[in-house]
């Protein structure tokens, strides 16, 4: 399986429909092998030996009583209920068919690449916010809400992104309110600067429109 099935391009494509976990308790192969700056198991790229041994310990009793035929491929629901099983090795096409059948039973689901895109954008928005780059954070979060707003399964991801946008909007509205108070107190230049900042950096949110309106209402310079 490691050398004939998992490297197959059709298998790689089909694997993006599911979440895979590698369970292997053999201890005789060499410890993590260097791949560039990373070290992974010599049998499977992207997995550490201590991880695949722990995975085996955590899952074997869930799917087997007694000995485990080697290899065995199982597809199960997200809560671990078995859908299908194949003892022994298999041709790539058989793996692809099993993965598609299991995905159809559980889904509709989010593909791995879409999921990683959304997760990456969410992470990027957090990084942008920590660096005070509000405009970039809004762009990242808006990408998630646009792509997943109507997705039947990714609603939670879209809602998470929208909740963050709502918080940013609230912060922007607070700046606008403060600017209005400053303007009323005669600090027109400070107010103008704050409103310009909200207008320029919070585009796409209601607070940017509020900033634009508040700027139009500022006392004109004499």
């Amino acid at each position, binding site marked *: *399986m*490691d050398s004939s099935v*998992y*490297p197959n391009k059709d*298998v*790689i494509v089909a*694997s993006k*429909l*599911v*979440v*895979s*976990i590698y*369970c*292997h*308790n*053999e201890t005789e192969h060499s410890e993590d092998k260097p*791949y*560039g*700056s990373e070290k992974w198991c010599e*049998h499977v*790229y*992207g*997995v*550490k030996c201590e*991880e*695949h041994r*722990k*995975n*085996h310990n*955590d*899952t*074997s009793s869930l*799917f*087997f009583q007694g*000995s485990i*035929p*080697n*290899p*065995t*491929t*199982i*597809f*199960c*629901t*997200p*809560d*671990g209920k078995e859908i299908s099983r194949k003892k022994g090795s298999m041709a790539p096409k058989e793996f692809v068919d099993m*993965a598609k059948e*299991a*995905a159809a*039973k*559980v889904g509709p*689901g*989010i*593909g*791995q690449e879409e*999921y990683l895109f959304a997760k990456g954008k969410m992470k990027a928005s957090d990084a942008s916010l920590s660096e005070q780059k509000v405009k970039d954070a809004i762009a990242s979060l808006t990408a998630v809400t646009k792509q997943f707003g109507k997705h039947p*399964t990714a609603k*939670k*991801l879209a809602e998470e992104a929208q909740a963050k946008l709502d918080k940013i909007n609230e912060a922007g509205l607070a700046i606008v309110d403060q600017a209005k108070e400053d303007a009323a107190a005669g600090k027109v230049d400070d107010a103008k600067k704050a409103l310009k900042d909200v207008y320029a950096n919070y585009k796409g949110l209601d607070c940017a429109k509020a900033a634009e309106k508040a700027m139009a209402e500022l006392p004109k310079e004499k």
Partner: protein
Amino acid sequence: MRLALVPAFLLAASAVFAGDKDKKEKPAQIPADYVHFASSWEAAKAEAKERNVPIHVAFHKDH
């Protein structure tokens, strides 16, 4: 003349080191794309639930 050769030598040496670094960072055994495996059973369940997709459990050796 010798002074002029120093920057040229440094450039050539840094290019050699940069080449070595690239070789180390991108060895041939790193696949361009591959089957991604979750780091743990808990991580697999959490991602599968969030994505609403099945889990593929690959068992290998039994001792």
